[in-house]
């Protein structure tokens, strides 16, 4: 086709061939073993296809073959950055089938632990997101505070990553002496250090240029694609399960839900998603402080629930607010000691699905920024 202007003739049909580019499975920006097949026309992406399953460990099949409590360690392994939250989601679903509750002290301990775990998880998310867009230093600052948290976890349950601490009916053991002081010290330190990440990373001009107006996910798309967690809130939807369908004692606690408003660009861009994570850490810290004030002496395990039990027949679905979105466990019992069906609704799996549709039309260099902003953990997408 030729367009004849007043002075010159412009050729518009210079055709180039689209190039297929393999991103992953070992690409560092895919945060694990994810392979994204990109198709690019020059610098512009024209298509994307995710290939997953490299880390598929058959968690749902295992759930149909082991006892209710024996399955608990497997929950640690889906989202290994927030294992406490995974333990909690599964334990609540089992408790719902049993019709049992955890004692008050155990509930506060659970909230403290899952919120600390949320901070640890978001620190990795924000730190590695800096790596994805070219900022190396903030990652080490983030890991410095995460190290304090891992020591707190190690002290209470002996493990740094896969805890198996929260279990049906309560928690494994009470906190050791001085543990609450250690947590209180962390909340102080974290408040002092948080501005470092803000100044080093989020307010950095290069970071804003790389993330603002990039990978925009509209509110309608976020809802239609089933996005949850920071991905949904980043797109401007005011929804948090902790506030809107409270579990544990969240209904009594005071915290704000952070929603993306297009702070540096448009609503639902990569900057907003990162912004939501940054401020959620502050809110989690607030929740931990409130729990430290309220926790009283008492039991930490419901004696009715032992280590080996049969659940009454029935179905229970429990969705909780994980750092990455809604982690749902749909358990079906036929009255036995083993689940008939153990379905895991993994937030990363669902949030990743929309990426294929966000990438076309973006620049090739933004692919890493967009995939990173979803904050996926491959252990969870593949289960």
């Amino acid at each position: 086709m030729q367009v004849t202007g007043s002075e010159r003739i412009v050729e518009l049909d210079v055709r180039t061939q689209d190039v297929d580019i393999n991103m992953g499975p070992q690409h560092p920006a895919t945060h694990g073993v994810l392979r994204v097949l990109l198709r690019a026309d020059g610098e512009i992406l024209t298509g994307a296809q995710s290939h997953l399953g490299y880390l598929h460990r058959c968690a749902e099949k295992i759930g149909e073959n082991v006892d209710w409590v024996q399955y608990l360690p497997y929950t640690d392994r889906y989202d290994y950055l927030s294992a406490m939250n995974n333990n909690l989601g599964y334990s609540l679903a089992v408790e719902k089938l049993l019709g049992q509750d955890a004692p008050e002290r155990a509930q506060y301990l659970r909230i403290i632990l899952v919120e600390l775990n949320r901070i640890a998880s978001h620190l990795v998310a924000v730190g590695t997101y800096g790596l994805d867009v070219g900022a190396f230093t903030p990652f080490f600052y983030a890991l410095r505070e995460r190290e304090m948290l891992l020591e707190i976890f190690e002290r209470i349950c002996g493990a740094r990553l896969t805890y198996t601490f929260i279990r049906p009916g309560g928690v494994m053991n009470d906190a050791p002496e001085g543990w609450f002081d250690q947590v209180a010290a962390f909340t102080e330190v974290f408040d002092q250090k948080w501005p470092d990440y803000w100044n080093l990373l989020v307010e950095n001009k290069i970071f804003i240029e790389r993330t603002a107006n990039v990978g925009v996910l509209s509110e309608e798309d976020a809802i239609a694609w089933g996005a949850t967690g920071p991905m949904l809130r980043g797109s401007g939807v005011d929804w948090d399960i902790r506030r809107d369908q409270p579990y544990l004692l969240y209904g009594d606690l005071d915290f704000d839900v952070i929603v993306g408003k297009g702070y540096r660009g448009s609503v639902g861009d990569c900057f907003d998603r990162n912004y939501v994570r940054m401020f959620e850490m502050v809110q989690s810290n607030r929740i931990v402080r409130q729990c430290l004030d309220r926790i009283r002496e008492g039991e930490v395990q419901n004696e009715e629930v032992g280590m080996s039990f049969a659940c009454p027949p029935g179905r229970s679905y429990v969705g909780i607010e994980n750092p990455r979105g809604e982690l749902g466990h749909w358990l079906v019992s036929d009255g036995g000691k083993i689940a008939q069906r153990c379905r895991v609704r993994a937030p990363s799996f669902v949030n990743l699905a929309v990426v294929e549709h966000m990438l076309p039309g973006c620049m090739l260099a933004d692919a890493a920024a967009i995939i990173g902003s979803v904050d996926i953990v491959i252990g969870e997408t593949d289960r």
Partner: protein
Amino acid sequence: MNHFKQDSGWGSSASILEAAEKTLASLQSAGFSVELRVPNLPLLAPDGEAKRLKKKAKEENPEYEWRGDSYIVLKDSASLLDVCRHLRDELGWEQLIDCTAMDPSAESGELLGCYQFLSLSLKARLSIEISISKESPEVQSVTSIYLTADWHEREASEMFGITYSGHPDPRNILLPDDWEGFPLRKDYEFPEEYHGVSCK
């Protein structure tokens, strides 16, 4: 034992029941053939019940007593698409949170397809089940209404051998393309080897 917060929090089975009852009435008046299943055990178990059930499970299976969430059974699975459209457009169930299936037992002639809905405006949840015969496991795909069903249906399809008619891209997602059998069916037999790698 300190039982508290009975009707709020995770034990919101009461709110699930309330939402299910309202939805049921609307679906029935729209002419769909639906049925509500409500648990008949109390939400919170009285002291000692766990021990009783543990003992009882050894003797017999108390099928008539169950606990947990109530759910709606859709008797005519051919009306699934219309029901989903009605749920989203008329009743405000904006999100399909999960879509999966289950195999009750190796002897059973049917699979169950399960759909979990979430309404951000009503702050409520809903669960719908349909039955799928094992002889011709075919269901309508709901991707045209809830985009998120895409990957969920691909997963259920490879794990249970269900064909979702109308699915835009029915490839395997977690399993390799040449995997044989449907792993989450109860009559699945683990393979001896896969491409020369021993699986035992």
